C-alpha cells in the first residue's frame, strides 16, 4: 500500500484532552515496530460530534481543516475506529461539494485505525508486548461495522505474552456510548452500558479492552459507578507494555 516508514498520528480530540495515555502508547507501539511518528500540531477535531448530531454545516469546515492539516501525510494512523471512520467513510459525503473533496477522498484511503494499520499495512501481529492478565475484548461498533475490523485487534492480542483472552457474551453489541446519544438519551445509554458491564463481569476478566477510546471512556464511568473491579484499557495500552 505504502512503503513509507513515517506515519502521521491523528489523535482524537477527547483522547488528546482526557486520555492522553492512549496516544502516548500508540506512539510507543508504532516506534517499536519501526515507524517514525509525526504529530501535526495543527490538528483539532475531525468534526464527528457535529456531523453525527446533524450539524453538517458546522462539521464541514472542521473536516476541511483536518484535510488541510493532513493532506501531505503519507499515512495517517488513529487509535480510534470511530474517528478513523469519520475520515474514511463519511468525509466523501460531507465534503461532496467542497473544493477539498478529491484531497479528502485520497486522504481517506491513507487513513487507518491502529490495529488495522499494524496488521494490514505493516503486516505485524507480534509487537513484542507482555501483559500477564485476563482480558476481555469489546468489539466497538464503528471499527466492526464501518471498517470491518473483526479479527485484527484479536490477532494482535493473541500474540501478547501472558495475556489470557476471555470472550464475553454478545461482544459485538453496542456499549451504549454513541457520542451525543450518551447525553441526549442518558438513561438508555447507561442502561446499555450496564448490560455491557454485566457481560464483562461474567467473564471474570481483570480488564476490558477495545480499539475505541470513546467506548472505554463510557465503560470506565459505568464500571466506576458500579464499583466494579474491572479496569478499562485501550488495545494500544496493552500492546505498549513490555517485559519489565
Amino acid at each position, binding site marked *: 500500500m505504502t512503503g513509507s516508514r513515517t506515519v502521521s498520528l491523528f489523535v482524537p480530540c477527547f483522547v488528546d484532552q482526557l486520555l492522553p495515555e492512549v496516544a502516548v502508547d500508540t506512539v510507543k507501539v508504532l516506534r517499536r515496530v519501526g515507524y517514525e511518528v509525526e504529530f501535526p500540531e495543527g490538528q483539532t477535531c475531525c468534526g464527528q460530534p457535529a456531523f453525527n448530531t446533524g450539524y453538517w454545516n458546522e462539521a464541514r469546515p472542521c473536516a476541511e481543516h483536518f484535510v488541510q492539516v493532513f493532506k501531505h501525510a503519507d499515512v495517517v494512523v488513529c487509535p480510534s475506529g470511530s474517528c478513523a471512520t469519520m475520515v474514511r467513510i463519511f468525509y466523501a459525503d460531507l465534503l461532496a461539494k467542497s473544493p477539498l473533496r478529491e484531497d479528502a477522498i485520497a486522504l481517506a484511503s491513507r487513513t487507518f485505525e491502529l490495529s488495522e494499520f499494524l496488521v494490514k499495512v505493516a503486516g505485524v501481529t507480534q509487537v513484542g508486548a507482555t501483559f500477564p492478565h485476563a482480558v476481555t475484548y469489546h468489539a466497538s461498533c464503528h471499527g466492526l461495522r464501518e471498517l470491518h475490523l473483526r479479527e485484527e485487534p484479536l490477532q494482535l492480542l493473541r500474540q501478547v505474552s501472558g495475556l489470557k483472552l476471555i470472550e464475553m457474551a454478545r461482544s459485538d453489541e453496542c456499549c451504549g456510548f454513541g457520542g451525543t446519544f450518551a447525553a441526549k438519551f442518558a438513561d438508555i445509554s*447507561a442502561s446499555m452500558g450496564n448490560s455491557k458491564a454485566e457481560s464483562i463481569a461474567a467473564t471474570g476478566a481483570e480488564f476490558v479492552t477495545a480499539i475505541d477510546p470513546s467506548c472505554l471512556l463510557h465503560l470506565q464511568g459505568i464500571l466506576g*459507578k458500579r464499583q466494579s473491579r474491572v479496569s478499562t484499557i485501550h488495545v494500544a495500552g496493552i500492546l505498549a507494555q513490555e517485559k519489565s
Partner: protein
Amino acid sequence: MSTTPAQRFLRDAAEKSADLVHRELIRRGMESYDAAHLAGRARIKDWEAARQKCQEIKREAINHLDRYLLQFEEKVTSRGGHVFWAANGEEACTYVRNLATRLSVRTVVKSKSMVTEEIHLSPALEKVGIKVWETDFGEYIVQLRDEPPYHIVTPAMHLNRGQIAKLFREKVDPGIDSDDPAYLMAAARRKLRQAFFAAEMGISGANFLVADAGVLAISTNEGNGRLCTSIPRIHVVVTGIEKVIPRLEDLAVLWPVLATSGTGQGITTYSTLIGGPRQPGEVDGPEEFHVVLVDNGRSQLLADAEQREVLHCIRCGACLNICPVFRHIGGHTYGTTYPGPIGSVLTPHLAGIKEFKHLSYASSLCGACSSVCPVKIDLHHHLLQNRRNATEAGATKSSERLMFRAWRSAMLHPRMYALGGWSMRKALRIIYGLGLAGSILDPMRVWNRHRSPVPLPSESFRARWRKSLGAN
C-alpha cells in the same frame, strides 16, 4: 401543557430502561430469535448473495413503482377485483368504511397488517358500530389489552403466559384455569372460529404484490390469513404501495429470506397467493375483492433519491430484534406504528420531522440494524441523514445550534481548541475538588448521573508531545 412525542419518549425510555423484569423478558425472547435466525441463515447456502438479490429486486420494483402497480391493478381488475388508490390514511379508511356500510357488514375479521395500524382502520370501523376481530394470536392479545402491537412481527412479545392467562380470564372466559400455551391458544381459537364464520368481511394486508401475476402474497404461521381471506363474502386488502415486486419468481428468494429474517423459519407455515374474487367454477373464495393501495407519505419518500431505499423494507423485524436500543426500551416506548430502527428512519417521513426527529437521535449509530437488514437498507446512515434534515429544517434547539457554532470556531483554531480543553479540565478539577460533581455547577452532570467522572489529566497529549515525546 400537553406532552410532545419527544417528551413522552424520554419519560417512557427512562422507565423501561430501568425495568429489569422487562429487559429480562425481552432478552430471553431475543435470544431464542437469535438462535433460530442464525440457524435459518445457515440453511441458505450464500446468505449475502440472497440479501443482494433481494435488494436488487426491491430496487427494481421501487424504481419502477408506477409501472408495476399499474400492471398489478390491470390483472386484478381483469378478474373482477377492485383497486382503490388512497392518497392517505383517511381516504383508505373512508373507502373501507363506506364499502362495509354499503354491504351491511356487521363483523370484520382481520389478519395481521401493520398498514391498517398505521392508518387506524379498526377504530374507524368500530366508530360506525362494526365489530372488528384481530385473528393473529398476538394481535388478538394486544387488541384485548387495548394497546398497539409491541413489535411488527411478534405483537405480544412483551407479555408472559401468566399475564396472558389473567387477561383471558378477564376478557375471554372466566373459566380459564391454566397458563399452558396450547390451552390458551385453544381458548382463543374457540372464540375466533365463531368470528370467522360470522364475519361478512375479511381484511388482510399483503407481504408482496406480485405485478406480473397480479396476485398478492401473504405469509402467516397460524392459518388465520387463509380463513380471513376465504370464508367471508368480501375480502379487502389494505397495503402500502411499496409492497409491489416485479415477478412471481422473485418470491423464490423473497419468501425464504423474509421467513428467515422474521422468525428463522425456512418458509412460513402458510404461504398464500390470492388474485381476486371467486371465479366461475371455483368452490370457494370471496364474492367481492378490493385492494386499497395506501400512499400516506410514501410517494414523498420515493421522490427523495437519497432515502428512497427505505421503501425496500419488507417488515421482517430483524432490525428491531438486533437493536440494543429496542432491547432496552421495548416497542411501545417509540410511540409509533413502526418501532425500532426502521421506525426511527421512516416515521419522520410519514408523520413529520419536527414531531418525530427525536427518534433519529435515539440511536447510538451502532449499525447492527444495517448489518442484518435482508434488503440491505443502510438504516443507520439514514438516521444520520434524518438528523441533518432536521437541523437544516431548523427543527433543533437554538441553544444547540449556538453551541455547535462556538465549537466550530474553536476547532478551526488549534490554540483556541487547546486553551478551551485546558480550561475545561482545570474548571472540572476545581468543581470536583470542591465535591460538586453532579451538582448544577457541573457541566458534566448528565454524564455523572450514571457514571463516575471522566479522568482529568493535568497535561494534554499535545502538551506532552511538545515537552518530550516529540523529541524522541
